[in-house]
């Protein structure tokens, strides 16, 4: 793959604030095209990573490359290829919706005013209303319309639906996925909700305690992982690399394993794992992955 086929490449990226490291050793290579979900609990470093991607922050260590360009050398050309929707979709509250569009037109090299107006008209958002008087869902839609009117190659969204009610959330995702379907744009969005990801995303990055704990194509990840259920075993398996997680009930042990570890002993059954369970298992793991050699499956 050449560099430009990656929407985002980070190499050893870390970000330290005064209170400590928010992100460490983050190395990613995310393909262009499709939808990438960045998942992690609150405080995992998602916002920090996204701000590094759009150039709002500079990394303390490592490099961030977006669409083949170093992001800290932000020129009008590179800036105009990336759209960003910050958490809580900030707008100039005293601007009218029309003035927000004028802001977008004034501050961008390309800005599809007609596209933005059509989207807002479809949603019934009046152009003469002040942004601050719109509902949360409408504000999110205006912010999305602004970001999409840039016709970006990469659209980055920070917790886009976290503050929206279920109906507004549904409408927002519908508009977003409609834009993806029209083609050309890579979407990177963060979420602390794992639910529904499978339906919308192609690629997954799991972030926990400032470190990337899992990254990959979702179909591949699901194919690589298996749940193994067998009789209860007392061995401590949590440290084994191939064993992502071991859960013991009274009579059974359930193992989540990676890399096609096949049950070698009778009495063990393999099952596919749901994406949500997979993500949760990785989030429950200690943040520092141990380097213990694979111990295989208990006999």
């Amino acid at each position, binding site marked *: 793959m050449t560099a430009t086929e990656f929407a985002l490449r980070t190499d050893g990226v870390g970000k330290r604030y005064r209170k400590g490291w928010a992100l460490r050793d983050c190395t990613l290579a995310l393909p262009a095209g499709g939808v990438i979900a960045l998942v992690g609990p609150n405080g995992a470093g998602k916002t920090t990573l996204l*701000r590094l991607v*759009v*150039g*709002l*922050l*500079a990394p303390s260590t490592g490099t961030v490359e977006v669409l083949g360009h170093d992001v*800290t050398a*932000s*020129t*009008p*050309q590179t*800036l*105009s290829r*990336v*759209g*960003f929707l*910050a*958490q*809580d979709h*900030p*707008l*100039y*509250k005293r*601007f009218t919706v029309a*003035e927000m569009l*004028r*802001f*977008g037109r*004034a*501050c*961008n*090299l390309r800005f599809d005013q007609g596209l933005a107006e059509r989207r807002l008209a479809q949603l019934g958002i009046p152009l003469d209303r002040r942004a601050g008087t719109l509902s949360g869902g409408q504000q999110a839609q205006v*912010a999305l319309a*602004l970001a999409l009117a*840039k016709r970006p190659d990469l659209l980055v969204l920070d917790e886009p639906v976290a503050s929206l009610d279920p109906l507004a959330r549904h409408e927002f995702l519908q508009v977003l996925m409609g834009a993806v379907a029209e083609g050309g744009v890579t979407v990177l969005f963060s979420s602390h909700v794992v639910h529904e990801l499978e339906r919308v995303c192609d690629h997954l990055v799991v972030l926990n305690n400032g470190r990337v704990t899992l990254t990959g194509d979702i179909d591949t990840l699901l194919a690589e992982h298996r749940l193994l259920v067998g009789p209860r075993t007392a061995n401590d398996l949590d440290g084994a690399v191939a064993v992502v997680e071991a859960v013991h009930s009274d009579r059974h042990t359930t193992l989540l394993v990676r890399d096609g570890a096949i049950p070698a002993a009778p009495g063990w059954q393999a099952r596919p794992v749901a994406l949500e369970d997979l993500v949760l298992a990785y989030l429950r793991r200690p943040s520092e992955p141990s380097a213990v050699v694979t111990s295989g499956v208990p006999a």
Partner: protein
Amino acid sequence: MTWLIWRQHAQVCVLGVLVGMFGIALLVLGTQAHDLFPGGPARCAGEAGINEACAASFRRLDEEYGYVENLLAGFYLVPVVIGAFLGAPLLARELEDGTWQLAWTQAVPRMRWLAAKLVALAGVTVTLTGMFTLVLTWFRQPFDAWEGRFQYDAFDLEGLVPVAYALFAFGIATAAGAILRRSLPAFGVAFGAFLATRMPVALLARPGYATPLTTMQPVPVGGAKDQAGHGTVPSFADWMIEHGYADATGQRLSWTEYDELEGAANQAGTNLNQFLHARGIQQFGVYHPADRFWTFQLIEAALFIAVAAVLIGVVVWRVRRRMI
């Protein structure tokens, strides 16, 4: 960018209108005050000792417009308010509303955004305070002719320093806004910093901008006890920093020593001046001559503008390093 800055900072118009109204009021009052001096206040001040009409004019000026002069003494804070008002929200409002993330992810690079905002808002600060100071300086001409321009109600309101105060407040408010991320506290910090700086500067630093001159002359036999008046050296327009008495060798007398001499004169029953004159007592004055006004204005303006420049430099550095 022009449209955006205009749209975001339209409240500047309110300041503009207020300054305009203030200017018109002062122009009306000032025209009346200037009309008291058909030959110009400066010439009249020189003749006040000999020309009774001029002396009467200055009395009327004091009676009829003295209250305006007193009122204006507090107006040295107006440029500070203007500067802080324009500087505080420059970054702080974007940071408190989260809109910095919107502004800096459009195609305008953040440094260009910052440069445009700084130039526009600092420019408005200079324009507004410059106009304000121009009208005020003109209004004060008759008062200055009589009282000199080194008094605190003249020096701090005229010439270059009000604009420098405004830029100082602008710089502090912008930097405080970048660090505190709140407009109102940033405004407060700028205002407080100016108040805390101004007194030490006016009282301690300003007299030291140049080496003061010293005059030494014998106590005149028949003269008034207080020699500071029109037509003398140092004159009313000079800035007297210190004055007192010295003995024949030029050794300065403490006020206790002077009181002893005064007591001795009373006991002896002689005229104080004759008594002092007979003992070779001299009067001294330490002062800055009136023509140092612009030098002092330049020095003080440079000090405040230098601080403003350093603070703006810190803001530019922080934004450039993407620390905010």
